[in-house]
């Protein structure tokens, strides 16, 4: 009998300790663009606060926001603002999503390094992507077909590009749609006539970033607001963040967190 009591006590304590751990648990889910920031910040945050248990997952902006609305995660990463439909759905479920801008991201337009074209205007860029211009010769380059590379139409990066460059017009239907920044980079660096776009953090010497409206994409020009294709990155919480969620977002926005943002290739807010 004594043993049974002992075991029960043990189990109860075990259970209690789980409940205790539950209070310090934080689930972050969403955009794959924001993922590296969230991961690195969580890592450093947990080193400083060993009692915190943060799990970070990807899945995409849409998945993260849906998870926040369903109460599955505490913080939703998103590379785009919430859509009307999502906000309505959140309200229906009594969730009040609050956006926190945690970093900026510039979208660089890239071509093969052998391409003599160095600069495009926003109008030229739009004409390339909608199909009005289809040869580099029309832009002062070699007589070569332009291979248009875009991101999948559901991605946050495309969403931003559509708004700022295409102004809502459609991408030519035969554009190659790639599923990630890395895939766009990989195609552009191997294809002489290619043009594509990636987040600033993905720029590499193997491709050439074009000046847009005369401005080189860089952390400086995005921060100053002179580079025209940039976007904010978000973390959403349900209502004003409390407890661990507040501590974490405060950490991301702190000097140390913003340093991580910069190290991951994004643009810190200050």
């Amino acid at each position, binding site marked *: 009998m004594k043993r049974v009591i002992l075991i029960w006590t043990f189990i109860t304590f075990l259970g209690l300790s789980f409940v205790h751990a539950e209070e310090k648990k934080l689930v972050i889910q969403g955009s794959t663009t924001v993922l590296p920031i969230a991961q690195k910040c969580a890592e450093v945050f947990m080193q400083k606060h060993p009692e915190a248990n943060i799990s970070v997952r990807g899945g995409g902006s*849409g998945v993260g926001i849906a998870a926040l609305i369903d109460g599955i995660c505490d913080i939703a990463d998103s590379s785009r603002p919430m859509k009307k439909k999502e906000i309505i759905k959140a309200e229906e479920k009594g969730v009040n999503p609050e956006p926190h801008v945690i970093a900026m991201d510039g979208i660089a337009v890239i071509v093969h390094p052998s391409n003599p074209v160095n600069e495009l205007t926003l109008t030229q860029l739009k004409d390339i992507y909608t199909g009005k211009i289809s040869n580099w010769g029309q832009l002062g380059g070699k007589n070569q077909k332009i291979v248009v590379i875009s991101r999948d139409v559901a991605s946050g990066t495309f969403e931003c590009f559509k708004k700022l460059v295409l102004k809502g017009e459609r991408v030519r239907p035969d554009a190659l749609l790639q599923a990630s920044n890395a895939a766009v980079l990989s195609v552009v660096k191997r*294809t002489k006539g290619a043009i594509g776009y990636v987040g600033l953090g993905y720029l590499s010497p193997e491709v050439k970033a074009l000046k847009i409206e005369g401005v080189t994409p860089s952390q400086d020009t995005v921060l100053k607001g002179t580079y025209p294709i940039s976007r904010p990155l978000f973390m959403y919480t349900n209502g004003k963040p409390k407890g661990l969620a507040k501590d974490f977002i405060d950490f991301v926005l702190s000097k140390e967190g913003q340093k991580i943002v910069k190290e991951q290739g994004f643009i810190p807010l200050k």
Partner: protein
Amino acid sequence: MRKVKENLIRGFFCLFASLSIFFLLGIVIVLFKEGLPIFKVTTFKEFLFGKFWYPTSEPPEFGILPLILGSFLVTFGALVISVPLGVASAIYISEIASPKIKEFIKPVIELLAGIPSVVYGFFGMVVVAPQVAKIFNLAVGLNAFTASLILGIMAIPTITSISEDAISAVPKRFKEASYALGANKWETVIKVTLPAAGGGITTAIILGIARVIGETMTVLMVAGGAPVIPHSFFEPVRTMTATIAAEMGETVVGSAHFCALFAIAIVLFLITLSFNILADILSQRFRKRLG
């Protein structure tokens, strides 16, 4: 007491056996529940035969004809490569190779099936696509041809191992009768063994089709991903699977786009289901003919 135990064990295993049926049922229910609402936004005809896939434009267009054709084109191309290679390897393994070579070559071919599709995709993107572009003088090597080439290689193990089973299952007396009539080995293989194993080989090919049409990661990486109706093998295409994989994560859950992706999954499910049923019917016929 013993009987109770027996029954318990029986029930236990029955539960596990039926679990997969429950899972299948659950998947089908979810597919239809999430997919069918798309037909409130668009019509059945516009969805299946629409020529443009612009799910996020204003107004959106949900035409999956380019995606269906993309899937079929890549699958057809893959079959052109994998059927001759796969069936020929099966004939070699079961009829010609010495036991020693057979013991070596069979596991090697089956090893092909064990390579993750993302590895095939990476290999295709980095090694094959630039070569294809160079050889055929194309602007870009990511197209239906490259995808077919790689998917064809991926389908070989499926086709080879099932064909090989079918060929080995041809009764020895068939072949002996052929030899007795003076036919040589080649004549026996072509005129006796292959026709006798025909049903099994057809099953192998159909399962190969199902394997290729459902493949996702590789086509996502090497097919180019442009949702246009293809006019040749050297154009980029976008398949149904790649569309679902690339867009599901980012779209608004419950939106028309979300439903459309599930509806594509329904179409894909029905296609593979019919291929599987076809394979089943054919293999049963084959058994009857031999029996």
